């Protein structure tokens, strides 16, 4: 999900993006504006004083809050670049997607210029094109200006064979065009319990292999990212305590909704995960601070509560400030697709304004309310895709969530404007997704379920959404008055 700017700010924001993009082109534009190199770079520092108020210019370059990694002494920017949502475009004359490298270069250049120095990749992201694109963009900068993070993404049983896992590891260096990887992660452990963990890292000796690589210095920090079964997390902590393996850092999902999750068990309770790390002095890398963009587009009622407190800040900025506030956090990752996302996020951390006690209480309240909405917890990470039966799983969830957030889901056939809502929902559904990609085509094969890091029971959600769509299509009575649903 793309991070969206709040609508109320839109005229101003689009204005900045115009100005800043123009000056940006002057700074980094290839060829055309070369004579203006760094010409207006100094302008920003003057206006940066007003950054806590309305934003009239681009974010400051020298105000990024940084954290120190106790293991290696790395000074890491609080905003980390998640490279899983780079802009793509259709290849010419083909339906295939390719990375829009020109835009990626612009984004990475801009991020580096504004103090972002942590780049998080995986061999799996963006249909396998993530590492190559990041490598190409970063190769144009000095190696000591950035930290690279990538992962052992051996989910596929075929990839779990030792030689294939090692091949994946080696290939990352080639794609990223580096000799040393600063942060290397066992990608998304927890799903499938210890059995799956053992198959991926113990039985094939990959964990030992990676520890050796760290000894050699090819990997500077070894850690893991976690989703799912908390038993695995606890086991990893135990190993750390026993000295079986030293975790230099751990990547967890943390945001104000997951901080104390009411709907799930403690496995996704970020509070618990973070405390375990903090106790041991392990730096935490934060993922999903925005829940895949969902916290950037809140339901109107909640959104206004935040706006009332800080009229000039976006909903997203609250989520970023929340994720960045605990001091055990090394960096907060955000998958930024457009320049506007990047700028908005830079503002949130240049520098970070801590969430105070009052604000913390407000966010806890918002989180509580938020979880009452019938949203699907999808973060559009695409791990479930491609669905073998052609569904666009995240697409269905994104559309449904969007309608819930906008309040455009009819809650009852007695609604005043039921007919209009019904039509808009159905027409919009067909626009968002081809009919053969819609929820009704789910056959409940359950192949997607183990792939989902958010542990969404995808077929069940598909059925729930389709039942709703069918009800609208058939024009059935539903809702409070008729006592159904």
């Amino acid at each position, binding site marked *: 999900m793309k991070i969206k700017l709040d609508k109320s700010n839109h005229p101003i924001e689009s204005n900045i993006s115009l100005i800043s993009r123009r000056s940006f082109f002057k700074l980094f534009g290839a060829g055309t504006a070369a004579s203006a190199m760094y010409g207006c770079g100094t302008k920003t520092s003057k206006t940066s004083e007003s950054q806590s108020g309305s934003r009239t210019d681009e974010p400051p370059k020298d105000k990024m809050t940084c954290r120190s990694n106790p293991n290696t002494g790395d000074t890491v920017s609080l905003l980390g670049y998640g490279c899983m949502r780079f802009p793509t475009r259709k290849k010419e004359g083909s*339906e295939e*997607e390719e990375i829009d490298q020109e835009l990626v270069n612009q984004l990475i250049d801009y991020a580096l210029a504004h103090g972002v120095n942590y780049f998080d990749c995986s061999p799996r992201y963006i249909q396998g094109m993530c590492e190559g694109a990041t490598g190409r963009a970063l190769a144009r900068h000095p190696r000591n200006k950035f930290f690279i993070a990538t992962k052992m993404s051996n989910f596929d049983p075929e990839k779990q064979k030792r030689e294939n896992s090692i091949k994946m590891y080696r290939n990352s260096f080639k794609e990223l065009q580096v000799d040393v990887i600063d942060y290397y992660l066992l990608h998304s452990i927890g799903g499938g319990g210890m059995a799956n963990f053992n198959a991926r890292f113990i039985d094939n000796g990959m964990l030992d292999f990676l520890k050796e690589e760290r000894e050699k210095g090819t990997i500077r920090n070894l850690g893991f990212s976690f989703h799912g079964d908390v038993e695995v997390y606890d086991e990893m902590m135990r190993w750390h305590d026993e000295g079986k393996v030293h975790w230099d850092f751990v990547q967890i999902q943390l945001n104000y909704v997951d901080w104390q999750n009411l709907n799930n068990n403690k496995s996704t309770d970020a509070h618990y995960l973070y405390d375990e790390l903090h106790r041991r002095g392990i730096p935490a890398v934060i993922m999903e601070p925005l829940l895949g963009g969902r916290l950037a587009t809140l339901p109107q009622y909640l959104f206004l509560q935040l706006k009332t407190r800080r009229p000039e800040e976006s909903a997203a900025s609250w989520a970023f400030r929340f994720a960045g506030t605990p001091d055990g956090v090394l960096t907060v990752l955000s998958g930024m697709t457009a320049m506007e996302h990047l700028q908005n996020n830079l503002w949130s951390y240049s520098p970070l304004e801590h969430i105070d006690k009052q604000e913390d209480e407000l966010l806890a309240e918002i989180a509580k309310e938020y979880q009452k909405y019938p949203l699907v917890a999808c973060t559009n990470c695409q791990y479930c895709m491609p669905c073998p*039966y052609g569904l666009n799983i995240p697409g269905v969830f994104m559309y449904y969530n969007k309608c819930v957030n906008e309040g455009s889901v009819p809650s009852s056939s007695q609604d005043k404007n039921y007919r209009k809502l019904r039509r808009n929902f159905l027409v*919009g559904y067909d626009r968002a997704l081809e009919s053969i*990609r819609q929820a009704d085509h789910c056959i*409940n*094969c359950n192949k997607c379920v183990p792939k989902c890091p958010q542990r969404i029971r995808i077929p069940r959600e598909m*059925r729930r959404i389709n039942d709703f769509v069918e009800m609208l299509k058939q024009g059935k009575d539903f809702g409070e008055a008729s006592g159904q649903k």
Partner: protein
Amino acid sequence: MLRKLRISLAFIVFVLMMLLFFDFTGTFHRFFGLLAKVQLMPAILAVNTVIIIALVLLTLLFGRIYCSVICPLGVLQDLISHFSKRGKKRPFNYSKPLTLLRWTIFAAFALLLVFAANYAALIEPYSVFGRIAANIFAPVYKAGNNVLAFFAEKTNSHAFYTTDVWLKSGITLGIAAVSLIVVGFMAWKYGRLYCNSICPVGTVLGLISRFSLFKPIINLEKCTTCGACARKCKSQCIHPKEHTIDYSRCVSCFNCLEACEQDAMKFKFSSNKAPENANRPENKDFSRRSFLSIATAFVAGSTLKAQEDAVDGGLAAIEKKKRPRRTTTLVPPGAQSLRNLNRHCTACGLCISACPNNILCPSNKIEMLMQPEMNYERSFCRPECTECSSVCPTRAIRKLTKEEKSSLQIGHSVWLRQNCLAVRDEINCEACEKHCPCGAISRVPLAADKPDSVKIPVVDTERCIGCGACEYYCPARPFAAIYVEGHENHKFI
């Protein structure tokens, strides 16, 4: 005055009639569905005595005003003739009636009507118009709608939504195109020649209109025999020298009234003298030509390609479904039986245009060419939808209520073991069971002695209504593992 009234009425009827065939949203049918039902041939097939008597009375009163105002094909010809400037730059002149040809064709038509109504429909004016509108003009209209939908989407408006434009039947499109060319050519060159030589409705109404009470009458005292009326007569039925009008061919268009500067032509009540036109020469030459041109309709095909489905990069490619071979053709609920549909359907295609689920298309089978059949590659027959049965003007598809529709069995599902994903790939697929609206499909273990083995669907054919949800949703491609076999006779369960 009368002429202007005729033109205005005809224009309104024509536009509404076109919309009736264009509309895919189910809006117009409710209001203007009657327009299709007052067409003579559908009324006869539906044995709608009220309308038949009304039309006969109308013709007895005012002549063939039906052909000028109510018949959409007649108005279409007038439009074409208007653009050809015939009657203006190139005046019409009297031509002799083609009585023998007319009645020969009529006899053939009547014979066909009894034995193969769909072939009789090849020259039946309402269904000829229907096919032209549905197969040639409607796709243009829909494409226009899709352009609007594209812009509506850009501006976040929900006023228009995209609809599928697809080739429903190449053969029928070919027939429609040939009809348009033949009728168009005749109208361009000879005005209402089609109506007065080929059209069976014209022939029947001509028989009545000879005795109509009101008709154009030439006042011999005022007439200067200038021939202005004959030059404007698109039916070519006014003989200016003999001062006679062939009322069997006159379509009461009133063009002659305005053409006459002497005020000698009046549309008025006249006691019924026997019509004056006595001479009925034959014209075999023409008949052969027209027969040949109609015959070409059978062989004309089309090479139009269906719109290809677009597939995104991150999404699995989905193979298109192929039609299963059904032993018995599936026909719409309300058709009662294959025989009833076959006998009563004029193949106008109104039901096909009206189907919101894109499951009806003109048949390519010889015995029911152009008549509607059902296929489930694009969707299934929603039990709550009764569109086709409510628009049919001939009662080839009888009107159904939602309740009747959902308990009407038009076919039953057949499971094909070798295609089923459960058997082929051991996947616990529940698509067919999940979507069956009448609970006719259950799943049982593949191996009877192993309750944990993958489950396969079993069909309770007594409860199955043949809606095709299972066939449409079956993930086996290109051929579904469960498909609907049609029934000769539909029945309520």
